[in-house]
């Protein structure tokens, strides 16, 4: 078991002929993920990575390949439409890696896909990894091993850091999910925490947050009231100045709220052990 992706995931890559799309398609295939097709408008009928069929539209790709998950690498100005397209084609789970999508686009996307019951992960996220089963995204496969720890994170590379630190001490992950650093995204901490709580393969959870918004505070409340499994937390941005966007569009302390201190306090009050730095996480999981 695992959450969201596994050996049965039939993955479609939107933007498969772009340089990032193709690079990571190869990495995913090498990892063992079933990449059943790719989409690049105008290039339908061709092939990517030798044996992956390219389609002009997600609709055609789904009809032909039976894809059940899509990953998006298309440029920011077209990415929102790509999400609409995947949702319209009946893809139930969409992972959007693209960074820099306007918030106005994402609000329209969210309000549209919510009514369709489609789950979106991201945008501006590293995707997710079920070690030993499927890699859907850009998390380097060799830094993680299978295990019983569920990881959910707003940050990409910080997640790698944690996976890497866990691997050093022989700890592995059931599924690792990067929810992305944008202010309006598809899936939040609570969504993933709930799945981990219900997942028999997950025994402990690592939740990585950062400054901005109130997602971590809400997650803390959820942990306190709904979760039985232990959670270890980390919040990035303790030294971040207010009013400045720390790279991620969502990582900003605004109007006095969203600081790391507030989030750490909320998590600790919910019984979460909060690490001082990422490499401290393995010891807190013991």
């Amino acid at each position, binding site marked *: 078991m695992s959450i969201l992706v596994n050996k049965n995931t039939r993955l479609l890559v939107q933007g498969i002929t772009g340089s990032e799309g193709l690079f990571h398609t190869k990495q995913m295939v090498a990892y063992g993920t079933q990449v059943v097709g790719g989409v690049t408008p105008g290039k339908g009928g061709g092939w990517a990575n030798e044996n992956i069929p390219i389609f002009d539209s997600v609709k055609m790709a789904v009809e032909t390949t039976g894809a059940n998950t899509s990953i998006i690498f298309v440029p920011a100005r077209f990415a929102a439409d790509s999400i609409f397209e995947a949702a319209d084609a009946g893809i139930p789970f969409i992972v959007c890696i693209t960074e820099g999508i306007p918030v106005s686009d994402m609000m329209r996307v969210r309000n549209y896909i919510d009514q369709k019951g489609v789950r979106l992960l991201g945008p501006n996220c590293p995707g997710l990894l079920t070690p030993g089963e499927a890699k859907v995204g850009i998390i380097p496969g060799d830094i993680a091993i299978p295990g019983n720890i569920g990881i959910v994170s707003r940050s990409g590379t910080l997640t*790698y850091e944690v996976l890497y630190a866990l691997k050093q001490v022989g700890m592995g992950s059931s599924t690792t999910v990067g929810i992305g650093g944008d202010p309006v995204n598809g899936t939040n901490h609570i969504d993933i925490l709930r799945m981990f709580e219900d997942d028999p393969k997950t025994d402990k959870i690592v939740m990585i947050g950062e400054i901005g918004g109130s997602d971590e505070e809400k997650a803390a409340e959820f942990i306190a009231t709904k979760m039985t499994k232990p959670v270890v937390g980390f919040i990035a941005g303790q030294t971040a100045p207010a009013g400045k966007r720390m790279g991620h569009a969502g990582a900003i302390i605004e109007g006095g709220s969203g600081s790391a201190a507030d989030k750490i306090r909320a998590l600790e009050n919910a019984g979460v052990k909060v690490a001082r730095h990422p490499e401290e996480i393995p010891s807190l999981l013991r």
Partner: protein
Amino acid sequence: MKLHEYQSKQIFSKYGIKIPKGRVASTASEAKQIAEELGGNVVIKSQVLVGGRGKAGGIKVAKNPDEAEQFATQILGMEIKGLPVRKVLVDEAASIAQEIYLGITNDRAAKKPVIMASSAGGVEIEEVAKTNPEKIYKLHVNPLVGIKDYQARDIAGGINLPREHWNAFSEILKGLWRVYNDYDAELAEINPLVITSDNHLVALDGKMLIDDNSLFRHPELSEMRDTDEDAPSEIEARKFGLTFIKLDGNIGCMVNGAGLAMASMDILKLSGGEPANFLDIGGGASAEKVAAAMRIILSDPNVKAILFNIFGGITRGDEVARGILAAIAEVKPKVPMVVRLVGTNATEGRALLANANMITAETLLEAAQKAVAAAKGELK
């Protein structure tokens, strides 16, 4: 990006929202001339991208053109919260019966635009939120549907606006909604929206924040950007698509990924050091970008050491290494450099850097501690 008051109000005016007669001036004599055209009784308003201009003395009412010139001279010589005043807006003075707050912004938790209004206008909305939260009326709008007349009436009723103004208010709100949408604004705000003593609704002050990610749709706005509030290194970084924020410490940081960059700053501090900057080279950074990033870090004379923490994912370790080598060849840095390289193509990257005379580290904590030591001159 932020727009100036005068830029925001010009946009509002195009969308049918009434604003005071007025023009922007760069010199006191221009301000005097505008005051003469407007009949003498004017407000001189500093155009800087910070709040609290009034308290800082950056807004003054002049009774005649000579006074306008005198105040403009004063204000154009000021710095407000560290920002020089380069322009003043000279607006016809209004006679105010009531001040209202009206703003539209993104509600990230609700995933929807939210309209906020308050009968307690004229002060900052965060202030109202603290002192009189019940005075702020909020309404979410479905972005696929847009704003409807009944929602405008709901808000008008919610702030107890007299009925005679409902229609005018509704038109202003719908105009502001179109502004917010057409410009992909993160905030479009009228504060105060005043009812004048002769019963007109006028947008006396305006503020717009534009989503930087949407600027590809608004090339004309990029030209309006006022970079006074940004450090020169931040402006330079933006040119290369880098996210750089200057801080006060002495350890330069170059990290890929915003979260990891913040965590790297945090761990430097935890290890007894002070970061000189936040720098996210982003996903899939090219060698050119990395070289630019290094030049920008080194342009800060405070920097005594550099920490490179690269965890490859969409970014490839070999590309980063090539960028570092190119930058070293060009800039010939004199400060010690600590590098930690893990993840996608990290092995290739480390091989490239093997002969570059850099301090290497395996873990982030080790890298941070070495960088702190290096900045203190304890490690080279």
